[in-house]
């Protein structure tokens, strides 16, 4: 009872099968009140399916799920009163204006006429839609629709918001605005569960992140925890002479005790660092060896690398939070990240 008190969402062994395919294959999830929890995964990983089950939109085939302690399967009506859901595709009425849409959803959920109107006005202002309030939705841009959609989810101030890929398809500026809005929600006391395929989005917004691949949770933790599971940072060296690559690799390996990743075609060597001062050791040793260095950078690992390491490249899916992870590793994770591929191998 105590544990459920503090949890906004609690899922255990969640399963969804479509035919013989297990779209969600035994996912555990605990989302604390007041946090932004990110579910990160490539297309088809099962993120949306999982969210739909938690939102009572799809029957749960296995396992249990609770929202603020209410069983999702048995108490759907109660759960729906606690939820605001904004999907990948705007679910507002094309035939109505922005104001009318908000009035519709307010009235449907038992707000009085005056209350709906007031709340609609506030939301339109908050979402920068006041000018477009009387326009039909068909005249709205993608970003405006998405904002209206989120506003529609917030009309009754639900304590828990599900955002399914809230910024997919938005331009960078609109995306930034959406992020600000999501951050504001949290300061107002909402709990947010969001799915995303954008690593920087999870990094920017989420307090904790679960990485999902092929219906299985492969890792969970804060953004920093996930990053450190891959290695804190790496020293990237551009050598003057490609012939030195072999020797430099060996020196670096000896000094840091981990496997550096050479990229002969770009005369580059990425050295994983346990501590930052190891960079100095490596540089001094290379100087003594007479290896010429053209340029160097110290890079913190990006979530991209974490993601690729966890889902794409046969690495051991380490899991900082200690929850179990199954290896979903046979090499196909979609790659938004070709530039970092070489560093990724550092993790492996």
């Amino acid at each position, binding site marked *: 009872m105590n544990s459920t008190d503090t949890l906004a969402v609690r899922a255990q062994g969640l399963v969804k099968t479509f035919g013989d395919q297990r779209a969600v294959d035994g996912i555990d999830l605990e989302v604390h009140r007041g946090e932004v929890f990110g579910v990160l995964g490539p297309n088809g990983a099962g993120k949306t399916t999982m969210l739909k089950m938690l939102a009572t939109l799809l029957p749960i085939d296995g396992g249990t799920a609770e929202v603020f302690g209410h069983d999702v399967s048995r108490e759907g009506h109660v759960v729906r*009163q606690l939820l605001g859901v904004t999907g990948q595709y705007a679910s*507002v009425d094309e035939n109505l204006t922005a104001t009318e849409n908000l009035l519709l959803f307010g009235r449907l959920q038992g707000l009085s006429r005056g209350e709906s109107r007031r709340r609609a006005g506030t939301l339109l202002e908050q979402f920068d839609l006041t000018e477009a309030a009387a326009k039909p939705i068909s005249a709205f841009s993608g970003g405006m629709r998405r904002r209206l959609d989120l506003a529609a989810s917030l009309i009754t101030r639900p304590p828990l918001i599900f955002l399914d890929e809230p910024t997919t398809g938005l331009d960078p500026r609109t995306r930034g605005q959406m992020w600000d809005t999501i951050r504001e929600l949290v300061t107002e006391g909402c709990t947010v569960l969001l799915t995303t395929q954008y690593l920087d989005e999870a990094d920017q917004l989420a307090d904790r992140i679960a990485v999902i691949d092929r219906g299985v949770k492969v890792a969970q933790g804060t953004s920093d925890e996930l990053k450190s599971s891959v290695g804190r940072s790496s020293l990237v060296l551009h050598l003057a002479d490609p012939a030195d690559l072999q020797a430099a690799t060996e020196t670096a390996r000896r000094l840091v005790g981990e496997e550096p990743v050479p990229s002969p075609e770009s005369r580059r060597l990425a050295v994983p660092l346990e501590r930052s001062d190891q960079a100095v050791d490596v540089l001094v040793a290379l100087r003594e060896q007479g290896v010429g260095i053209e340029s160097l950078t110290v890079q913190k690992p990006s979530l991209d690398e974490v993601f690729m390491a966890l889902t794409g490249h046969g690495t051991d899916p380490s899991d900082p939070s200690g929850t179990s992870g199954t290896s979903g590793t046979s090499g196909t994770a979609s790659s938004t990240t070709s530039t970092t591929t070489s560093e990724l191998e550092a993790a492996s």
Partner: protein
Amino acid sequence: MTTTTNPGANPTTTPTGADRPAVLDRQLSTHVSLRDTVAQTMTLAWRSTMKMRRNFEQLFDVTIQPLLFTAMFAYIFGGAISGSVKGYLPLIITGLIGQTVLTACVATGVQLREDMDKGVFDRFKVLPIARIAPLAGPMVADLIRYAIASTLTFATGIALGYRPGGGVLGVLGAILLAIVAGWSLAWIFTWFGTIGKTAQGVQGVSLMVMFPLTFLSNAFVPTATMPSWLRAFADVNPVSLVITAIRDLANDGAVTGHVGWALLGCAVVIAVFAPLSVRSFNRKM
């Protein structure tokens, strides 16, 4: 919103330090009360009327069609069936009311199907509303369509020289009956709407059912002219029952036993198709 929820564990109503008002203030209910269901249905009916206002072509079947069909049928069949256009009017106008209302019912099902494919329906699904409201709302709004269809048909008839013997009250009664019948028969097509995969499919099946229902009735010709096996069907066809009752009301101003039979026919249609529709709709909600 009536009862507070969840007798066992009640975390949402237990104040703890970390709780935000957003969760605490909420009065959670375990089911939707009848009052709320009605309110939600009316809100969704309002939504449908806004839709009608913005898409006038959705009203063509109840505006242009009555004008066109009434004139066409009266002039084409009048001479052949009743000897004169004027003599045919009492028969055809009332028959056409049955036909136009039935056409409007087809649109009810098709539009429901279209609506269910739209994004906004996904939101209805996650709202804590009565599962039946998104189905019932449009059906309530469609009462307006049946009213327009029957009123316009009468008006066109009167313009062509039809003088209903039942007077104003008789005609009003007939319109009222047409609206009730429209709502009842619409359940057939609503059911198609809930089981069909696409709007076009629903349209196709609906027309296949609508045409026999209309033509195998007393709408355009007296059933006495039909072969006996056909007459047997035409006489119990709910559409015939409704049209006969409309004739009694509009042409004679009499509330006859036929009105009772018509209402009974409507009740039977509702009793069969409403549960079917609700069941298959709930499966999709």
